Every structure is written in C-alpha cells, then in structure tokens.
C-alpha cells in the first residue's frame, strides 16, 4: 500500500463565517499525523474536506500526487479515504452488520446481499476488539448499544472499506481505556501495513502516544507541522492558542466543614443507578468521575427531575421528589447540559430569549420586555459575554460565549445547587479558564456544585472530593491525599482503590 495526501491552502466559508482561511495537511503511508486545534480552529472542517463531506471554496487537494476534487464521501471512499467520526454516521435502527456493510455489502450477482458472508465478516471485525465490549454482536440494532460500543462499530465500519488513509476524528472520546489501548495496537498494525492515519484529537496524552507528527490549526490557519520528537505539551498548546497558555487549575480553598448540607442522597436508584448515597455542602465543588456512560449524566438528570427514581433526596433539609425539571428549578436547582447545541440553547433565538427561557413567568402578562432586557444585560455583563447585542441570535456566539449563555440562564435565579454535565467538553482552552473562575466565584458565594467531567485532569485540578461511578454505583470517594490520577483511573475501571497513607 502506498498513499499520500496533501491539502494545500484550503479555504472554506459558511455564509459570512470563515471556517478555514489557510488549511494545510500532509500525510503519507506508514505515518500517523495528529491534527490539533482549539474549538473554532477549523480542525473538523479540514477533516470533513479531506473526506469529501464538505467542499472547499479554494485551495487544492493532492492525492497520490494528483490534484483531486472530492465531490462526495463516496468518491473519497473509492480513493481509499475513510473517516471515523463520533458515531455521526450510524443508522440507529439498523444492526451492527447492516451498518458496517452499508453501501458495500457483498453481493450475489449484481443485487442480492449475501447475508451469511455479511455476518461472518462482521464477526471477524468484531473480534479485533474482543474482550473490550459487553453487548456487541452482528445482529443487534445500533440504537441499543452504549456510546463506546457504537464508536467501535464506527471504527470497524471504516475498516471494512479497506482504506488506505483513515481519519480518526475524536474517535477516542467515547472509548474507555481498554478500548483505546486496543485501538492503538491496531493503529500500529495499520501503520506497518502502509496505511496513512490522521488523528484528530484534543487529548494530549493520546497524541503523544500514537502520533509521529503534529499539524496545528489556529483560527482557521495551519500554524505548525512538527515532528512529535521535537514537541512538548506546552509548545503545542502555545501554538494552539494565541499568547501564553492559561493555567488549567484554579486553587480552591477547602470547604468549611460546618457549612450546611445542601443535598443529601440515600439509596437513589433508577434504571441505571444503583443505591447512590452522598452528601454535598454549600460552597463545595463535588466532582463526578469515571468512564463514559457509567451513570454520571443520569445522576445529574435525576436530581434535576428529568428521570424517575426511588430512594431519598433531601434538598435544603427538605425531602423532595421532582417529577419535572420545572419543580427542581422552583427549588433553586440549576442544570447545565454538556451538549449545549442540542440541550442547552435555542440556536436560532436571540441571546435575550435564551437567557430568559426558564424565567418568563416572572415578567407578568403582558411580559415586561424592558425589565427582561435589563436583567439580561446585567447577566451578560457579569459573565463577560462578548456579543453584538442582546437581540443577536445565540448561534452567532463563539463556543465559550455560548456556554456562558447556557449558564447565564440560571444566574439570575440564584441557584443553591448547580448541576454541571461535562460543561467544558468542546470548549477551548481560553474559555475553560474563564469558566473555572466562574465556578470559584459561585463556590465563594455558597453555591453547592455537583460537577461531572470526562476530563480527569479537570476533576483533579478543581475538586477536593470526587465520587467515581462505575456501572451505576459509586465505587470510590476520593479526597485529599487519595485524590490522585492513579486512584481515579483504577476506581473508574471498577478495581479497588489504593489507600495512600
């Protein structure tokens, strides 16, 4: 196998927004090139262009040295270029094998699908990841699989086309440690067979493990193409953001142990959670950790009243049983979802509308819009939102500012309990810093915060205490000296924690 791809000076515009101003990427057989960049850097646009999903406005794409136009993902696939996205391309109602072989099913004659061969070859592919999954089988509908197994199906689907160049676009985000290790073993094998691999990620540790070179994008331009042997974490981060890198951790004062208990949970059980019990005091930032999909989101949503449960929840010293988020809100609980585009914002509506969505009932009938504007202005200012005006659509904001609006929704309601569901996923480094400052502020004001993050570093840097969930249960409560990365990881895997004396 011999392949090379060279993207040169790619420009891509979406209406008035320039997603890519000067995108460049070079990769050849037997190498793994990492593609790095903050949110809004154009990294996913570039990856979509080299796989034919999106067409560039300007620039050239050379495949095997020849200028090529990729007018559709099909053309790209025929040239041997396949991408693995974050479960973007799976059909939920279809089975694992149907998904893997869609558009290139082995046929008898010209039209009839050879079902037995499909099943056999699917099993072969599944065996590549054997031992790392629970439910995968050829005939299971994909919608019944957890996110990590769906990601494996995406990877196998790409592999089934026998690609010469494979792009892993944030493909490890949903995978657990065991699965990532297996994937990297496979990557090494692919390299030795002459495949070219592009690895789009924001996880430094993984990039340093698997990549040979790194291409960095910033604000739509390529700013560096460096061999990994010459790179350090700091130098890469510096390339990614303008100026010096922001400190990742904020020093938090330890919680006063006599602060009132805001939340007390006993024997909390849902279809996913099993007998959860813990306490949370005012001013405390309690972390939730563990691998993906172990019940962290479920816990937060249950506390917010969106999931039915049994067990006891005592909020502000009163037992509560919320059956709808509205009730939680009325009891001064706030919830910040991780996927702000689909759960936190009404993209086409104005910033004003988004900020006041939970609170319109407070403005009388007919609504006192002037008062709503004044309040929204205050909230936006106190959060340092960079916006054209309150009436601009929220889709015009950058990722970090949009996330502020998601939080801003709740600020004027003075929540006593703040539930955060992986809020910094996909937020760039600069905005993360501002977010951490905000959390510190809220803590000082006495807000109790329950914070799920899929980024272990974040948990370690921000929290004094972390509950680790595995399979819907709390397998460890780490604090003080016990709160180390090693303990976090082993608790995430469900193994016993080591006690540091």
């Amino acid at each position, binding site marked *: 196998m011999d392949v090379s791809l060279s993207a040169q000076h790619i420009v891509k515009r979406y209406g008035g927004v320039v997603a890519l101003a000067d995108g460049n990427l070079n990769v050849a057989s037997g190498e793994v090139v990492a593609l790095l960049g903050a949110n809004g850097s154009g990294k996913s646009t570039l990856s979509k262009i080299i796989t034919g999903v999106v067409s560039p406005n300007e620039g050239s794409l050379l495949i095997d040295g020849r200028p090529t136009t990729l007018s559709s993902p099909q053309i790209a696939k025929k040239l041997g270029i396949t991408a693995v996205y974050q479960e973007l391309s799976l059909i939920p109602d279809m089975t694992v094998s149907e998904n893997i072989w869609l558009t290139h099913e082995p046929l008898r004659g010209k039209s009839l699908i050879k079902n037995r061969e499909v099943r056999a070859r699917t099993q072969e592919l599944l065996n590549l990841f054997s031992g790392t999954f629970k439910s995968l089988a050829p005939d299971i509908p994909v919608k019944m699989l957890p996110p990590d197994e769906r990601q494996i199906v995406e990877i196998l689907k790409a592999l089934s086309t026998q690609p010469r160049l494979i792009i892993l676009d944030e493909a490890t985000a949903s995978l657990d440690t065991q699965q990532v290790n297996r994937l990297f073993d496979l990557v090494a094998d692919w390299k030795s067979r002459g495949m070219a691999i592009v690895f789009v990620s924001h996880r430094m540790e993984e990039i340093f493990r698997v990549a040979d070179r790194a291409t960095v994008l910033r604000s739509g331009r390529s700013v560096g193409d460096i061999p990994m042997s010459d790179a350090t974490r700091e130098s890469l981060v510096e390339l990614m953001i303008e100026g010096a890198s922001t400190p990742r951790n904020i020093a938090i004062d330890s919680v006063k142990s006599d602060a009132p208990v805001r939340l007390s949970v006993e024997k909390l059980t849902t279809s996913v959670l099993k007998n959860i019990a813990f306490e949370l005091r005012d001013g405390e930032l309690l972390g939730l950790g563990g691998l993906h999909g172990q019940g962290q989101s479920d816990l937060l949503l249950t506390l917010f009243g969106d999931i039915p449960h049994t067990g006891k929840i005592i909020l502000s010293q009163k037992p509560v049983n919320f059956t709808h988020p509205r009730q939680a809100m009325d009891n001064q609980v706030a*919830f910040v979802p991780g996927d702000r585009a689909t759960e936190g914002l009404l993209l*086409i*509506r104005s910033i004003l509308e988004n900020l006041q*969505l*939970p609170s319109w009932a407070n403005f009388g009938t007919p*609504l006192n*819009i002037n008062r709503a504007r004044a309040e929204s202005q205050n909230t936006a200012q106190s959060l340092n939102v960079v916006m054209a005006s309150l009436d601009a659509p929220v889709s015009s904001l950058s990722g970090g500012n949009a996330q502020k609006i998601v939080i801003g929704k709740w600020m004027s309601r003075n929540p006593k309990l703040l539930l955060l569901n992986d809020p910094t996923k996909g937020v760039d480094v600069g905005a993360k810093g501002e977010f951490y400052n905000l959390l510190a502020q809220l803590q000082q004001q006495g807000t109790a915060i329950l914070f799920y993050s899929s980024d272990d570093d974040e948990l370690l840097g921000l929290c004094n205490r972390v509950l680790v969930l595995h399979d819907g249960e709390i397998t460890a409560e780490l604090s003080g000296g016990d709160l180390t990365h090693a303990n976090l990881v082993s608790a995430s895997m469900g193994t016993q924690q080591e006690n540091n004396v």
Partner: protein
Amino acid sequence: MINSLKALQTRLSPPLLALLLAIILYFIGGILAPGFVNVEQAINIVRLAAFLGIIAAGQTLIIISGSEGIDLSAGAVVTLGAILAFRISNGQDSMVIPGLLVALAAGASIGFSNGLGITLFGIPPLVMTLGMTGVVAGTIRAVTRGELEGGTPPIMGKLISAPLVAGLPGVIFLWLLIGFGMWLLLERTAYGKQLFAIGINRTTARLSGVRVQLVVLATYTLGGLLAALGGFILLAFSQTVFLNLGQPYLFPSIAAVVVGGTVLAGGQGSYWGTMSGALVLTLLQSLLRALQIEEALQLIVLGSTLVVLISFYGRERKLRQ
C-alpha cells in the same frame, strides 16, 4: 432574476414578502380581469381573507409548536362550530352568546382530544387530526341525522358580514383585533415564548423548565377553539350550514400559514404572516374565479401555485454544505 428574488427574500421578512405578493396579484387581476380592481371587490376580498385568516389562527399556533404539528381536523371543527351555533341560537339574537359559547366549548374539546392523543398516546399529529376529522364528521351525522335545523341570528350578519363602519364589514375589525391578540399571545406571554421554544428544541425547552406536554396540549386545545370561532364567524357570512362548510378552508389555512413564513418544522413564524398569506390565497382564488376558469383548471393552478410558493418559503436544509 432568481438571484435578485433570493436577495429580496433574505432582506424582507416573510410576512412583508407575502403582502407584496398579494399586492402584485391584485394588480395582475386588474390587468387580466377588467372590473377586478374596485373598492367593493377589494373589501370583499379582504372580508373573505378575514374568514380564512381567523380559521388559520389556530393552525398557526399548532405549526409553530413543531414536531410535525398540524391540524387536519380544522375544517371539520369549523363545520361543527357553525352547526352548533346555528342550532343553539336558532335564529334568535338573544341566543347568540350561548350559541357561540357552545361552539367554542365543542371546538376546545376536540382540540383537547387531539392534544391528548398526541401527548399521552404518542399518535403523530398528522394521523391523530386526520382520524379526528372522521370522528367529528361522524358526530355531526349522528347528532343532526342529516337534518340541519336552526337559524342564523340577524345580529351576526349585521355585525360581522354586512358593512358596519365606512363600508367595512365588522369581520375586518374583528380580524385586526384577533391579529393584535395573537401578537400579544405569541410575543408578550410566557406561553408564547414557551411555544416557540418547544418548536425549536423540545429537549432544551424541557431542561429549561418548560412543561412541554402541557404547552402542546394547550396549543391543540386553543387550535380547536379558534377553529370553532372561525366556524361561528363563517356562519354570519354563509347564513346557513351544510355538511361540507368548513372543509374547503382546511387546505388554504395550511397554505396561508406556510406562505406567511411560518416554518413547517416549527419554532419560527408569526400571525401577521398568516394574515398576509390569507390575503394571497384569497386573491388567488378570486382571480381564478373572475377569469372564469373552470373548476378543473382552478384546482391545478391552485395546487401548482402553492408548490411554487413553498419552493420559496418551505425548503428544508441541504444534506451537503
């Protein structure tokens, strides 16, 4: 030409665009059919548009609510409202209010049932309201047994249908009042804000504390109520009832909403748009009638025109960008 049309489309809001279209149609009518452009005809057209516009008010709310919201039972509810008002009031002015109230209550109940089927039993709005049409039509047959007795109180004709002030019939003022009321409802109440929210993204709405199911239920109930109101007002114009009274207004009501810029996917739109849309549709139908085009051709032109109009307003997102 297409490019300048497209540029026009993005710079003007859909209701204004529809209004512009209505004016253009009016003058085309003047050119093609002599005698089309005169004050009396204009008032008549606005009057007819008012009936359609009022009937389309409920449809506007339902389409904004999103999730494939639509009310195909509106035509039947219009008929039901008219028949009930006709029978209860029995031609007596003193019984007008009870007639109206009974009609509104019936419309609201039908709407409520639609809402229940959609929220509680998960029946898609298209199917639920289509099925409900059969129930309403069946109820009308069962209750009236084919005999449509009653009467239209003279006061209705006087206040609504006949010239009231400056030659303009009361329905036009009523329509403006309803227009203002709808604006208040959509833009100046918590309900309105929540309605747009659930039309855009139900998950975000729910996680922001909106009781989505209740809003949907309220919307369909209101839709039924407004359709029945439309039937009551239509009675003032037709002065009699028949089994197919409301059905011809169903398709135009949906068309009026779409032409007025309310997006079928939900979450965007206004009643002003529907009002302009009602004018456009009424003009189109009047024009076709004035040109004495036979029914077959009228249907073809009406259907094709709507397809053309939707291609300006109702296109969905591209898969490839």
